[in-house]
């Protein structure tokens, strides 16, 4: 049953060292605030799962939270490489990062299988690709009716999934809309879940057949307006493309990265404070809090 609680408390009680953690959001609704809070609280040894690790995972990896990454595409969308991710993979800095690499189709199916309490996902996939050569978790099974060979990968079943959504009602029922990505599946695949939301409302006013996550299927709901920044929440904010571009030079060197993280994340109290400091350091960004 969802507890409506501050993000700091939700992370403190639900995210543990060594956990398998998925922060999901497909360009839209990426839970940046929750990622920062995990960094602030110094979590270590996490297995991070995410189809599209981008800035928030670059930050978590660079700050030493992660021991392993399960993913299908890691980059700064529209800009280029994730320098902290590459530094971890190529140079083992700040620590070696084990990787388990899939395709999007594989990851999406693995979340569906996790939400469905199946031990593995079945798909037509990976044919002709070298990925099965480097990922022992890509196997093949035979159809018991046709004999066809199909790909099989283990379900993703995180200890904790974290997402951002547009709103929750006072009971903790959550509504999200627009680009949905794999968030619903990621939440339902996980043992525990944290949802940060733009606002808490009296009535969700959900259209028929909307993507609603009932309160009783969630662990914590945390009001964090603008908590997806520099990602966006449709109906509330726009993606700050300038921040994505600005991240490239910040993350390029270990020193500029560490200084930036200290000033903007470690030395700030919460996401509102981060937005305030960012408005000082990067006045050209769309940093006004919604």
């Amino acid at each position, binding site marked *: 049953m969802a507890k409506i609680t501050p993000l700091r408390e939700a992370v403190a009680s639900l995210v543990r060292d060594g956990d398998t953690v998925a922060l999901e959001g497909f360009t839209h609704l990426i839970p940046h605030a929750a990622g920062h809070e995990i960094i602030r609280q110094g979590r270590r040894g996490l297995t991070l799962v995410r189809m599209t690790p981008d800035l928030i995972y670059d930050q978590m990896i660079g700050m030493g939270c992660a021991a392993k990454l399960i993913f299908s*595409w*890691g*980059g700064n*969308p529209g800009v280029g490489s994730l320098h902290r991710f590459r530094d971890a993979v190529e140079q083992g800095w700040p620590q070696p990062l084990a990787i388990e*690499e899939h*395709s*999007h189709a594989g990851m999406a199916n693995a979340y569906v299988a996790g939400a469905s309490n199946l031990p593995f996902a079945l798909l037509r996939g990976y044919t002709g*690709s070298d990925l099965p050569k480097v990922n022992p978790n890509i196997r093949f099974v035979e159809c018991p009716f046709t004999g066809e060979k199909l790909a099989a990968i283990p379900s993703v079943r995180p200890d904790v999934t974290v997402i951002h959504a547009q709103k929750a009602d006072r009971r903790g029922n959550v509504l999200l809309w627009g*680009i949905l990505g*794999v968030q619903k599946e990621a939440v339902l695949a996980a043992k525990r879940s944290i949802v940060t939301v733009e606002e808490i409302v009296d009535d969700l006013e959900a259209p028929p057949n909307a993507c609603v996550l009932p309160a009783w299927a969630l662990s914590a709901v945390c009001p964090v307006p603008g908590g997806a920044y520099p990602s966006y929440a449709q109906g509330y904010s726009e993606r700050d493309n300038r921040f994505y571009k600005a991240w490239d030079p910040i993350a390029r060197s270990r020193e500029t990265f560490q200084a930036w993280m200290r000033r903007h994340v470690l030395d700030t109290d919460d996401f509102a404070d981060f937005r305030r400091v960012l408005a000082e350091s990067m006045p050209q960004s769309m940093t006004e809090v919604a």
Partner: protein
Amino acid sequence: MSTATMDFTATEIMTVAASRLLKDGTVCFVGIGLPSTAANLARLTHAPDVVLIYESGPIGAKPTVLPLSIGDGDLALTADTVVGTPEIFRYWLQGGRIDVGFLGAAQVDRFANINTTVIGPYDAPKVRLPGAGGAPEIASQAKEVFIVLKHSPKAFVAKLPFVTSAGYLDGGDARTRAGIPGAGPTAVITDLGILTPDPVSKELTLTGIHPGVTVEQVKAATGWDLKISPDLKTTEVPDAETLTALRDLQARTAAAHGTAQGQAGGEG
């Protein structure tokens, strides 16, 4: 208004040439960056009923400006509907409903295989690239595939260090023997010309060359001994209407995003 003009850049003719390959009414699974630009240009010019599907979930997206990310809000707001990412890959791509997969690439080899994973050994990478994204299943399950990328010896290599997504594998009937359903990459469009697979050997062959480009230039930008079609055609120059549509689209995009259209590619 459709008078020819020579006033265009190499990137523009690449985009226009790629766009022209998309027939009206085609259902197209669109990668972000160059493919998205070409596909939207097609939609805004000769192919108004092309159906654009993005892996983030929009089906029938009709963005007014180019998306900078695969999940821009404009894609959702202009789509016929937006479904979850699992459904995109399960019901729409794997379901066999995609006519054309439109992909970018970091590297392709002579058999149109794609690498977006790693340069150097996988366990000790020289350059770690973003990874597969949706490409392996797009490349195998779309009825055909167009690849668009800039020509350079680093991008066009004889043999890939890592095959992320299958083209024709070792050539000949290797793809069919591997049980891959789609026809594979039927065109690779670059800033220098167009490469298509030899009908039998499946080796990429230069069959189109952009105006002003020499065969030597293309050979120099290709990391293997590129075969040239005896029937080599020069790409028709973009007409003014199409060029205007492209430039308007990019100007609208720049104005909306407060930045030039990112051509770096990428998903996320």
